[in-house]
């Protein structure tokens, strides 16, 4: 399990290759990559987090995924600080002998990460800055697990 919370950019492609190589023999690798959208005139995204709690929360979520699905490994990288449109915010990767496990575990990680890891996004646009509002659908997504 590999959990990283960092300000610096990372190379999602290199991480995928590294992750897949490290866990070879696993058959199925799924990644999710969150990218700053550029719609609505967004010029930057600021991500605040709660140092200490963030890592603990992500580790807890990843432990839960490892306990529920037969995984060969899990990776979570999440950035904080100021990001430009097109930049990768975060990445989740899972690997498993079977594709359904890899898919479900990645979706589980994303659903919990959205609502249970202490990150807050702030969008900077032509009309100033505003905090991204949590969606009810994100909280609702947790009920399926």
């Amino acid at each position: 399990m590999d959990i990283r919370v960092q300000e610096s950019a990372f190379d999602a492609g290199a991480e995928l290759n590294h992750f897949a190589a490290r866990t070879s023999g696993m058959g199925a690798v799924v990644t999710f990559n969150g990218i700053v959208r550029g719609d609505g005139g967004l010029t930057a995204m600021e991500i605040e987090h709660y140092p200490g709690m963030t890592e603990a929360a992500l580790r807890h979520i990843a432990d839960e995924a490892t306990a529920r699905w037969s995984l060969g490994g899990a990776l979570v990288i999440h950035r904080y600080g100021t990001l430009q449109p097109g930049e990768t915010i975060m990445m989740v990767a899972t690997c498993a002998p079977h594709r359904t496990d890899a898919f479900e575990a990645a979706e589980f990680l994303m659903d919990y990460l959205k609502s249970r890891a202490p990150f807050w996004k702030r969008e900077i646009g032509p009309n100033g800055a505003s905090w991204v509002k949590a969606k009810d659908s994100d909280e609702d997504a947790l009920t399926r697990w």
Partner: protein
Amino acid sequence: MTKLDVLYFAWVRERIGIPREQVKTEATTVAALVEELKAREDRYAAAFADLSALRVATDQTLTDFDAPLSGVREVAFFPPMTGG
């Protein structure tokens, strides 16, 4: 009297105006601590006006406003999380 580190994030931090402070309190629950803070100044009253819009963590674990404060060293208040 207990000494707590109280942390604020996102718009809660902005509304209160500081990211963290040390608070001396005799409150035994998070809710009681919130009442003490609200009584202090308008900016606290404004930040804590709608608790349903807030989340709380004690010692870096999500909890609810009924949670006891005994043994707790750090309390954090913030809006619903929006990572990913």
